[in-house]
């Protein structure tokens, strides 16, 4: 199978005043199309930073990232935004729905950015699929946490992404709701044939993916295949 994400010798640090803090050291790995993959590690291990770099949300200090066959360093910010709009989906820990838009409008945004005339129809279908067929015109503040994350899932899949990045998708949910959301995530992933990259510190959730990358102190400590 072809590689959809390839990371080589990645390094990233931040400066805090005069102090330089290295967050990621010499990270290399790759993910194949349709693979499900998780990045685990304790708080502060650099998981979210790694996810952000893989999705082109920031520049690495050193190293190379190639997403969907395109080298990130060859693109400017708007080029990376276009790539995300075409190929990438996002699920965030705190849902990150646009508070001023209704559920339907939130789901439609990625499609509208692509200029898709059927944005509203596709969004309705997706919302119905995640069980929110009766909540099209509700604002995020009128929805529960679980419902908001389901809207976020619908939005993440609306542009039929090649790869989906999920950052602690159940972090803000109770365990029961979290389980339902994960079930839905994997179901949608299967239906759409998307590559799934999850950042989590939940080992049970990580075990649901085909491969696990373990980070500690910004370094890879292990890459494991799971029996899935």
């Amino acid at each position: 199978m072809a590689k959809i994400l390839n990371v080589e010798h990645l390094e990233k640090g931040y400066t805090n005043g005069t102090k330089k803090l290295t967050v990621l050291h010499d990270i290399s790995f790759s993910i194949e199309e349709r693979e499900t993959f998780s990045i685990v590690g304790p708080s502060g291990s650099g998981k979210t930073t790694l996810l952000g770099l893989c999705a082109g949300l920031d520049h690495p200090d050193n190293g190379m990232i190639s997403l969907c066959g395109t080298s990130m360093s060859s693109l400017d910010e708007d080029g990376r935004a276009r790539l995300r709009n075409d190929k990438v989906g996002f699920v965030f820990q705190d849902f990150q729905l646009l508070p001023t838009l209704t559920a339907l409008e939130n789901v439609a945004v990625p499609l509208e950015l692509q200029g898709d005339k059927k944005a509203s129809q596709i969004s309705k279908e997706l919302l119905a699929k995640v069980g929110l067929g009766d909540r099209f015109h509700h604002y995020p503040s009128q929805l529960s946490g679980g419902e908001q994350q389901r809207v976020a899932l619908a939005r993440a899949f609306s542009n039929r992404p090649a790869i989906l990045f999920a950052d602690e998708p159940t972090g803000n949910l109770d365990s029961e709701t979290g389980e339902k959301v994960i079930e839905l995530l994997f179901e949608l992933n299967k239906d759409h044939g998307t590559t799934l990259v999850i950042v989590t510190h939940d080992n049970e959730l990580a075990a649901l993916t085909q491969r696990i990358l373990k980070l500690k102190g910004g370094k890879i400590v292990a890459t494991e295949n799971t029996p899935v």
Partner: protein
Amino acid sequence: MGWIFKMAWRDGRASIKKLLLFMASIVLGIAAVVSIQSFGDTLKKNIALQSKSLMGADYKIDSDSPVNEEVVKIMDSLGGPRAKEISFASMAAFSATDATKLMQVRGISGGFPFYGEMDTEPVSAATSFQQTNSALVDATVMLQLNLKPGDSIKVGNVTLPIAGSLKSLPGSNAIFSSVAPPVVIPYLFIEQSGLVQTGSRIDYEYYFVAAPNQDMEQLDNALDPVLDKNEADLDTHVSTSRRLGRRYENFGRFLNLVAFVALLLGCVGIASAIHIYIKEKLRSVAVLKCIGASRRQTFLIYLVQIAGMGLIGGIIGTAAGLLLQQLFPILLQDFLPVDVQVALAPQIIIAGVLLGLIMSVLFAMYPLMSTLYVSPLQALRVQAKTNFRSKRAAFFVGLAIVVFVLLFSFWLLENWKYALSFVGGVLVTFALLAGIAALFIKLIKKYFPTSWNFEARQSLLNLFRPQNQTLTLILAIGVGSFLISTLYFTKDLLLAQANLESNRNSPNIIMLDIQREQVDSVAHTVQDQGLPVLSNIPIVSMRVQEINGKNANQIKQDTSSRVNGWILSHEFRVTYRDSLIASESLERGSLTPQIANGERPVTISVSTNFAEDAHVQLGDTVTFNVQGVLLPTVIGSVRMVDWSRLQLNFSIVFPKGVLEDAPQFGVLTTKAPDENASAKLQQKLVRLFPNVSILDLRQLLTVVEDILNKITLIINFMAFFSILTGIIVLLGAVRTSKYQRIKESVLLRTLGARSKQIVKILALEYFYLGALGAISGIVLSLISSQLLAWIVFDTPFFPSIWPFLVLFPVITLLVMAIGLGSSIGVIKSPPLQVLRKQ
């Protein structure tokens, strides 16, 4: 682009309350600017439309001396005047009430006015006074002196019955009428009055009605140079209305600036509110970028929102301004020369709407630019650095704002120097107020009163909490207070200066037009009343004949000459004395006190403005025409003259020993201790010397005060917009930081704070803001008024205590009321409910 508009609408729809508040910040400023602009335009059009009624004729030829044969020939060639008028200021006595008053006597013949009307009570008096040989007396004087038609008026040697009261008359100026109100008498009585004598300031006017298609400009161009040579002047209804229009334009421009300050204040409110608004939106911007929106797209979403808001603000403001201009004819009724029919001008409507759009976009641009630099990483839980601190962007946005404000000021003022001074003044005021706010915060941080109780400390801490509005609030409150107190202090200053003259041991009664042979008798009459003769000033009339050997006519025709026209056409009233007076100081050269009879050259002293306008220096020669006799002189000194003092000042002063034998009249001054003594003296003088005009400076002061009060009312009306805008900015700032406050007070209440304590914290916070803003504004205004007093008026200034006693507490309380009023919901609701609402 369609998606951007859609997103701007979707996002704006949910933030409509906040956006409306931002919009309100500029609505009033725009309304103020548009109303003044529109009214100015309407007035100009109305003056042009009613120009004939303003003059009462199509054109007139006037002169300050009887016209010569050449002029008579010209008038004959024009078909002869349809009406004649001789006018001058003179004392009038009213036997019914024993009162005397300085009045403008207008002797009119013919059917004047030919356009417009003489408005009288009874109406028939306007036409009947000529046949019944009676007078029409200014309506205000009739009321003041309790006169009735049938009472008599004595002007010089003539006593006439009063036919009625005169409400309005073409060619009468409302302001001048307050000093010398008009009395109209039939022309034939002028001669009999015996008041037309050498030295009196007399205007001879000849009114014409033109053929229907006569070109006024052409007539003016053809005749004016010829008439000018013969010391006469042609005024057409077109040129008169243009001149009048310009006079009102100047006042309108000043009001426009007051309105513009309101708009600028609103813009500061917008910049601050957008700053907070955009900060709240940055998370959404990051999410949009995550899911593929470009920098340009996210920037445009909010730019479209702000521009839309500015556009709507512009439209509402313009509409409000157009409605508001209906009030101006009422406010300005005492000053308006014409009946104003309010009209709409498309270019002003467009300017108003564009102003709303441009000002909001310009002032929102800097905070808006932060959307360009938001990292999409912010959508994840990474604390990415997105602090937008581009100095270059700030510089260019700042520059664009200053340039636009400068251009707009220039558009309003049509003078670069004034526009630059205005923008400089605004920048300095805003910078000083911002500096005071920053210094205040720094001082609190450095010397934090740790021993104060919890509420007092907490309220101080609130002033520099993240996203605080301290700077905006102090600016809004400060500029408002600055404006009101500056207006008040300036009026104080003008009045103080006038009062100074009346309180000092300086004359308060000036007796003019005293014939040479009457001087001693008038002086005795004054002394008989127990009053001193403070000065006896001889006055000789003359015109400039030559400057440095070049004839006045040659200079007039020389297109390269920079000599100001008035120097060559003015009839100068000149005096002679051997020393300077209090209002004068020597700038260059030395004053020649006296020269021996017949000694030449005659060394004279000229005022600085004469020297500048005539382009003459020390040693230059000026030849004067003293009623037919040519008198060569050399400029020996240049004096600085303070023309603003209420006393007789002169452009040209001769030494003693030259003009003693020239035809002249005298001016005596005295000081009457009270109105009673003044009235007695006036009655006696009018009876004995009817040709002597008397100026009572105390009365003049009342007139000045009255005019100032009326002007202040209009200016205050405009300043009111700044105050209202300040209140709206205040409301906006309070609302914008409301959620911050909610969080804090909920936390405090959860920790056990009582409502009373929270109210106290909030009240103290607003007290600090209100008090600091108000005191900074008032003190800044005090300093600028003091500077104005030293530099411009050159007079000691004792500020009134009123702004401190009234303005300071009122503004502070208002700020507290607005602050607490909008937070009351937060205090009343239970913590959980408030938390859920978020």
